[in-house]
């Protein structure tokens, strides 16, 4: 039985891991972009970005999941009922609900990109102006200053909050269950329904703990690697 449960949970965990991996891979660069938007000199860019980040950070991820999952179809049907008809609307209306897994990935990427963007912003804004000025005086371009002077210092500063957020992400993947994505918690609950077994649910903790443990070790390693300078 233990083997069966483990195998089944591993399957569920693989889904959790995929959510984690895809989210991280896309939310990190997107977050950097959003952080640039929220620091932009141009109000037309800065203001909407900040509003967007506020909405995403101010509402539960669970709600966002549901919105992404049902939203497009609902909008399509509603628009169709108003008599609007064009290619896009028709396409939305036929799309009753989105593919579950894709909906999860999209919602997670948007949500985490916003959190990451705030971490990036904090990191970038904490770099003293003197660093930029030292680069400018040496005739460097803005791009050179960002990549050669600022970036590594930002990285060093954001590792602690980033590791926090990423470890939260590991556990947040369980929210995918809300729209019936077969992640590890869901797969454990199957055993309650089918066999009346409760312990597989608690057994999932081992998977989370192991994974978060590995991540902690990784982050400690990166932190050590960047320990050679202060700044």
């Amino acid at each position, binding site marked *: 039985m233990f083997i069966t449960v483990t195998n089944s949970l591993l399957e569920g965990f693989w889904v959790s891991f995929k959510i984690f991996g895809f989210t991280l891979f896309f939310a990190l660069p997107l977050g950097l972009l959003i952080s640039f938007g929220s620091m932009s000199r141009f109000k037309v860019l800065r203001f909407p970005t900040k509003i967007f980040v506020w909405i995403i950070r101010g509402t539960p991820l669970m709600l966002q999941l549901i919105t992404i999952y049902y939203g497009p179809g609902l909008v399509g049907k509603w628009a169709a009922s108003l008599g609007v008809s064009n290619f896009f609307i028709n396409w939305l209306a036929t799309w009753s609900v989105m593919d579950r897994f894709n909906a999860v990935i999209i919602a997670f990427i948007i949500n985490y990109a916003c959190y990451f963007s705030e971490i990036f912003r904090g990191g970038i804004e904490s770099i003293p102006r003197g660093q930029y000025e030292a680069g400018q005086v040496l005739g460097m371009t803005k791009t050179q200053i960002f990549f050669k002077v600022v970036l*590594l210092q930002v990285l060093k500063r954001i590792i602690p909050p980033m590791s926090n957020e990423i470890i939260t992400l590991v556990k947040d993947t369980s929210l995918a269950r809300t729209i019936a994505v077969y992640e590890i918690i869901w797969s454990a609950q199957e055993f309650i329904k089918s066999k009346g077994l409760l312990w597989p649910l608690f057994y999932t903790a081992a998977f989370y703990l192991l994974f978060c443990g590995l991540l902690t070790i990784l982050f400690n390693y990166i932190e050590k690697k960047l320990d050679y300078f202060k700044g």
Partner: protein
Amino acid sequence: MALLEVKGICKNFGRTEVLKGIDFSLEKGEVLAIIGSSGSGKTTLLRCLNFLEYADEGTISVNGNILFDGALPEKKNLADIRNKRLHFGLVFQSFNLFPQYNCLDNVTLALKLQKKLSQEEIKERGLRLLDRVGLSDKIENYPCQLSGGQQQRVAIARALALSPDVLCFDEPTSALDPELTGEVLKVIRGLKGQDSTMIVVTHEMEFAKNVADKVIFMADGVIAEMGTPEDVFDRPKNPKTAAFLNKSLESF
């Protein structure tokens, strides 16, 4: 012809007039010391020379070429400004070394990015400059492993790497413990005569007196007095200068 010619520099921050018409010129190899009380606009003047700030009026010329003219609308063209900056170097009060690079890389980073010299030439120049500021034994050290005085000497070497026509220092020793100011001032003095033209904003009156060829006393955004160190320190014409000198002597 003067190496550096500054004419009628004015700078406002909103409604505060910080510089109200600064004129001076500097010959090649000369050392100019700028003294003056806090808030008189010394830092702002150096920042205008290095284009970290854009003067509202006035011109800055090097070797007879007008680099900056406050009257022209395109004064803030970035690519242009970047090239013009190379005529000037700036050593900051707070060093502003790049913490993630060792001493040698701090000195050579800008040269590497310029890609005008070969790797060997760049390294050779970096080593020579660090030797000149007496830090040959700290090449591989990171800024956090150095004393303040050593950090400032690396910053001087870094500023020299691009061979600026005019090297500016903004209170290079103000952030240092008193026992460390000497080593930095000695390095700056050592640069004199190696045809470095320098502008040094300083509160070290002895240094200004002994090293400078020319001294400017600034007060409230204008040059209240300008002349040789003997003129300014021993025979000040402006009562403000005399008052300032008395006060800075008192504090010892």
